[in-house]
């Protein structure tokens, strides 16, 4: 009996079965076909992957060596030489190979301890700007995100137009990434989207923005952040920027910071107090002490840390009183640490406390004093 005959007989027999059994048989066949397809797909995926891995293993060291030669050894390769050598290693220069080269370059930039001014030579020789532009035009979101990050790592700032098209994308994640990246990658108006940040900044937004602000700082283009702190209605942006003022130790916005001490949001007040400490605005110390007992825990902790930073020697009795009054163990640890590090008088006061206090308060003091405990 041929297969066709067998199949027809099989179909004829199935037709005589109840409907539910017919459905069962059809679904079983579908399941079997899907299973077989998955095995084939996995086999194909693996074959491609293994080939790619072999290529990476073979070519990465050679490519790395070529790039490091250009970057860190003073051998003056011409653009043509770089291109030809790269072609010798990888064969035909296509999108896949350029992506590979770009990955290696990004890896070197990320890992290398040494600076080099020769990145542009490789970028120009291989046409990586055009390749990145192509990636920015890609329909794949992952390629676009990749392009943002690679451009940032390589410190390329020629993509205003490409980024702008995503800065108003309907895809929230892409839009966010584009607006953040604009700060690092725009050559003309990097701060453009500070006024258009939507909703609350995530912690990741903050991490990205800090990276980009650092880059602007290295380029000498970091603007005073006070104007956005003053005008922005976005609380999360204000909190972030106040932190950044402290991070970059920007001067000249004392009045704005003092004004923020009266903000209705406790988080804004807390970061402002921290920043006042970093900027060493010692004249605010009496105001901070005055406010201490009317502030929530988060601001109280900031005040203690700030007073420790000021280290004026005038507030030891306040710190001791705060230690006595606090019921929160974590806060007590911070106050005890502040007393211990508060000049010579502080250390003496700490030892006195150790002799007078008993029970758990004594343990807190010993805990703070123990250098083996890294994170108090």
């Amino acid at each position, binding site marked *: 009996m041929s297969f066709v005959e067998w199949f027809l007989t099989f179909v004829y027999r199935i037709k005589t079965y109840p409907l539910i059994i017919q459905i069962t048989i059809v679904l079983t066949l579908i399941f079997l076909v899907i299973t077989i397809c998955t095995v084939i797909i996995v086999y194909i995926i693996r074959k491609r992957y293994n080939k790619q891995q072999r290529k990476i293993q073979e070519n990465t060291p050679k490519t790395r060596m070529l790039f490091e030669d250009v970057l860190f050894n003073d051998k003056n390769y011409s653009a043509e030489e770089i291109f030809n050598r790269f072609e010798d290693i990888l064969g035909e220069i296509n999108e896949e190979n350029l992506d590979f080269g770009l990955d290696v370059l990004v890896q070197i930039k990320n890992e290398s301890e040494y600076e080099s001014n020769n990145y542009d030579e490789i970028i120009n020789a291989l046409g990586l700007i055009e390749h990145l532009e192509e990636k920015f035009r890609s329909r794949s979101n992952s390629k676009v995100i990749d392009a943002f990050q690679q451009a940032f790592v390589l410190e390329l700032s020629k993509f205003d137009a490409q980024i702008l098209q995503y800065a108003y994308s309907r895809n929230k994640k892409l839009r966010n990434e584009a607006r953040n990246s604009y700060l690092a990658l725009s050559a003309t108006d990097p701060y453009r989207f500070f006024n258009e940040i939507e909703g609350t900044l995530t912690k990741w937004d903050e991490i990205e923005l*800090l*990276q980009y602000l650092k880059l602007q700082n290295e380029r000498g283009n970091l603007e005073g952040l006070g104007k956005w702190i003053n005008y922005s209605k976005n609380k999360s942006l204000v909190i972030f920027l106040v932190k950044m003022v402290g991070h970059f130790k920007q001067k000249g916005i004392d009045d704005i910071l003092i004004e923020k001490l009266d903000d209705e949001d406790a988080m804004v007040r807390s970061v402002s107090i921290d920043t006042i400490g970093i900027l060493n605005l010692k004249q605010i110390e009496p105001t901070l002490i005055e406010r201490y007992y009317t502030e929530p825990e988060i601001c109280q902790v900031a005040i203690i840390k700030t007073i420790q930073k000021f280290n004026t020697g005038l507030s030891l009795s306040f710190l001791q009183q705060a230690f006595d009054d606090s019921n929160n163990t974590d806060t007590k640890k911070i106050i005890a640490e502040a007393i211990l590090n508060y000049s010579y008088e502080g250390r003496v006061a700490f030892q006195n406390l150790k002799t007078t206090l008993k029970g758990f308060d004594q343990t*807190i003091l010993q805990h703070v004093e123990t250098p083996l*405990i890294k994170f108090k």
Partner: protein
Amino acid sequence: MLEIFTVIYEYFIFFYATSLIISYIVLAIFSFLAINRYKNYNTDIDDEELLKSDLAPGISVIAPAFNEEKTIIVNVKSLLTLEYPLFEVIIVNDGSKDKTLDLLIEEFELVEVPFAYVEKVKTKPYKRTFKSTNPKYDILTIVDKENGGTKADAFNAGLNASVFPYYLNTDVDCILARNTLTKMIRPILSSKERVIAVGATLRMSNNCDIEEGLIKRVRPPKALIPRFQELEYIRSYLLGKMGWELINSVPNVSGGLGMFDKEIAIKAGGYGADSHAEDMDMLTRMCVHMMNNRLKYRVGYIPLSCCWTEGPPNLKILSRQRTRWASGLFQMFYDHRAVLFNPKYKNLGMVTFPYVFIYEFLAPIIEVFGILFTVFLLIFGLINWTFAPLILFYSYAFAVMVSSIVIIWDQMTFKYYKTTGEVLALFVTAILEPFLYHPLIMFFSLKGYYSYITSRELAWGTMTRQGFDKKDDTRNNSDNNQSNDTNKNKRPNIFQRKRKDESGGKFEPIKT
């Protein structure tokens, strides 16, 4: 009468099986979307950014240890090699009877220090804290406490000793990937809503190459039981939890590897100290706390395998492990019964809990009932021999297909295995699993339910470790069995518990 019963039963099974199949298909689609979304927006360059950032939040890595002398040193070293800018490692010695603590003291040059241990969550008495005199291990803290009988109690002690706003709970027998913290903190950092917990995939370490506490080469286990478990884990994490993640309904973040928001964990009352399913119990408490306080939250999941743990090498150990899990599941549903089918708890009460209850908790009971019913039909000659094998094969083909799809999802995410043969070996595992492994799991689950109802004694740490040096297995296995006997946790049976509830101990979702 018999005919009516048979018809009702058949209809029940039809709808049960059909809904299960549909749910699997839906989960497969959801997990595909979630995995793709993760892959599109997460790159390794993000890790570099995070590692260099001054704004990376601190993480406390908490791992309880009970009689873990065989693997403790290698595993603690593994935890110390994690890559992250700001973290501490807290090992909670839960009253080990073996040399766990002595080995730690010797290897890491530990000394007792005055430590302000605050009992934010109640635990069995805390004894002391050790810190290393070697600056190389300055992020290591060892908390020594009396044995609490459950891993949950030990986790609570770790929680009390931790200083950072997030914590990663793991087991000391787990080997973590070095980038675990950077990968797992990412959903917390990227979300506008508060992410209270994040999970990732676990795999078996049985045949992997491990050097200095680091996974150098991933292989599927050679032995059948851990290999079955590897497939089961991949299916559960990649298809199940990753699918649930898309609709913010992850039912459980594994006790082997989970990152949590410490503030919420403490406000939710910490781990249920007598819980044997401490992971699901903890997440449920946290979700309940958030909903009771009308706070928005998310539970995140990442499709990467960040943790390798030793799978049960034989039936005896598998039985212990699964009996404990099943008993814990029963306990969890009993303790949180107010959540089940309660619209107040939204997705948790109306989707996640009912799903786990119907398709995971009840499944072994329904299956064993099905087997008994088949025997009954056999005895009375009522089986339709033309159609019965077709239906059996239909279920089998579906099970194999689901596992095959999961293998593709796994390959899509990250190619952990080096050779194609290793991946294809998983397909063979998928073909054998429904016959060999599934009946065992069903049996052990029923055994666990029985243990819970009759209050049979259960112990944590009953998963006997082979360690990475397998020469001494036989001797040490018997040692461990003995020491496990000393760690038994006597519990009231379900009727006593019910009486206690009626006299005022009724479950009330925690409100703060």
